[in-house]
């Protein structure tokens, strides 16, 4: 075990994992996170805390992760390369580990032009591949980048993001390969609506044997209206939403129920694809729907792995 996290145990046990996303509030009040944690507890093996997603200032992912620990759910903290140089990144990962956080997802981060701090100076001292190299060295060699010794190595289960819907398509799997070689233990993908393209991408990943080198967790995002689908299609970078998906929600008598049904069908499809080891549910601003989706997909109860979280905040 690299980190001993619940997510790592579920995946290493060969169980189909479920992760879900929690967007931290634009607030100093941790209560929304506690509420999501209580609503979703038991429906996923670990919960991603986004790191100022779309470059909008929010409660920090590490602090949100600690709130999750206090509520007895396991966090995956996301860490962008946009806001931290290598000093801050390594320091924060030591701090996160010290606080009981085990899963860290390494990402470049949405550019600040999308957010509410458009005038910010971005950092990008390292990119996500380099971030993974750095964190793996910290964990496996107990050294910071440059070689100085750490008295205690951080316990980390390292994640990378992958987007099968970005271009150049023929390079996307090789880019993932680079991330896995750099240290990614698990991979969470962009939300999948174009199943054909995802299948082609997975076939390429299997050709390179990537599905055996890291746990690929497929991303889904339930939609509650055709407007939400249109938004994803037109406004969110790196997404492909086929017209059939938009039409299905537009013509549905109960769009929300149809959105859940569509998501469940997607999960069932994804479970049948060789090399997909889990599903990541991103119910943006609709977190309360996650338990139902997981239940309808037949993924409850979640595997009870040995008490995974041992930390000072556990109540």
């Amino acid at each position, binding site marked *: 075990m690299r980190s001993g996290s619940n997510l790592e145990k579920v995946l290493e046990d060969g169980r189909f994992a479920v992760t879900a996303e929690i967007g931290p509030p634009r607030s100093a009040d941790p209560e929304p996170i506690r509420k999501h944690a209580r609503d979703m507890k038991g429906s996923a093996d670990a919960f991603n805390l986004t790191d100022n997603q779309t470059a909008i200032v929010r409660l920090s992912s590490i602090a949100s992760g600690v709130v999750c620990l206090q509520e007895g759910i396991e966090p995956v903290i996301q860490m962008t390369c*946009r806001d931290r140089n290598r000093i801050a990144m390594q320091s924060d990962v030591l701090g996160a580990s010290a606080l009981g956080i085990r899963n860290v997802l390494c990402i470049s981060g949405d*550019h600040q032009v999308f957010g509410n701090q458009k005038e910010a100076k971005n950092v990008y001292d390292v990119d996500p591949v*380099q971030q993974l*190299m750095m964190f793996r060295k910290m964990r496996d060699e107990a050294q910071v980048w440059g070689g100085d010794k750490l008295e205690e190595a951080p316990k980390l289960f390292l994640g990378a993001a992958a987007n099968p819907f970005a*271009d150049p398509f023929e*390079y996307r799997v090789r*880019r993932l390969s680079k991330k896995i070689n750099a240290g990614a233990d698990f991979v969470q993908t962009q939300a999948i609506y174009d199943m054909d393209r995802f299948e082609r991408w997975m076939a390429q990943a299997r050709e390179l044997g990537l599905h055996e080198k890291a746990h690929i967790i497929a991303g889904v995002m339930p939609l509650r209206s055709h407007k939400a689908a249109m938004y994803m299609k037109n406004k969110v970078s*790196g997404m492909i939403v086929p017209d059939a998906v938009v039409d299905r929600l537009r013509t549905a008598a109960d769009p929300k129920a149809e959105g859940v049904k569509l998501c469940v069908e997607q999960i069932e499809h994804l479970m049948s694809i060789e090399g997909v080891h889990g599903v990541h549910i991103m119910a943006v601003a609709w977190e309360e729907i996650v338990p139902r989706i997981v239940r309808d997909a037949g993924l409850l109860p979640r595997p009870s792995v040995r008490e995974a979280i041992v930390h000072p905040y556990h109540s």
Partner: protein
Amino acid sequence: MIIAEQKGIEELIGILEGHKDILVVGCRSCVAICLAGGEKEVGVLSEALRLHSDMRSKGWNISEVTLERACEKEWAYELDQLVEGKDCVISLACGVGAQVIQELFPDVRVVPGLNTSNMGAPEEQGVYNEKCGGCGDCVLHLTGGICPIARCAKSLLNGPCGGSQEGKCEIDPEVPCAWDQIYHSLEKLGRLELMDVPIPPKDWGPSRSGGPRKMVRSEAILTDEQNRMKGGKR
């Protein structure tokens, strides 16, 4: 070359408040090529300022000159006579030129007439693209002759992020994705395997992050004797 553009006239007029004898200084190098601070632009701005002065009874006394290369002291020193009696120089040279002029003439306030932007190249007349980030450790041989430091919005070194779609960057559908360009350049060069080579965290020491940079080429430095023989002013 250095790419720059003129500050808005309103901003410049605001900066000039309280000045009277003003010298507009241009440069025939980069900023002339990007149509921001050459002889023509110096003439147009000077005329605009004179008009404004007449209309608003500012009483400005505007004179103008365009240097061969404002960033070299030998050329900038040609202002020696012209700055005499002036209380302000508007530099239409780049930020480098403006500083060299201020250093040579510390008693006259030099104000920037340009916003200096980047190291780039004209794409066509009137269109200029940033090309080089001046990081001090060039990787163009690995990236198909396209700089990811300057041309990727995130300065990524290991391939395109998830926001690259149909050759465009996530920040703007008008901005090409540098890594998409790199990929296709390497494809043409038959060197796509370079896309698989992991590039470790970069040493930013030689970049601006290491502090202001000073390059000393000892073999080029003139001795006192050589300086005397050259008879230069500085």
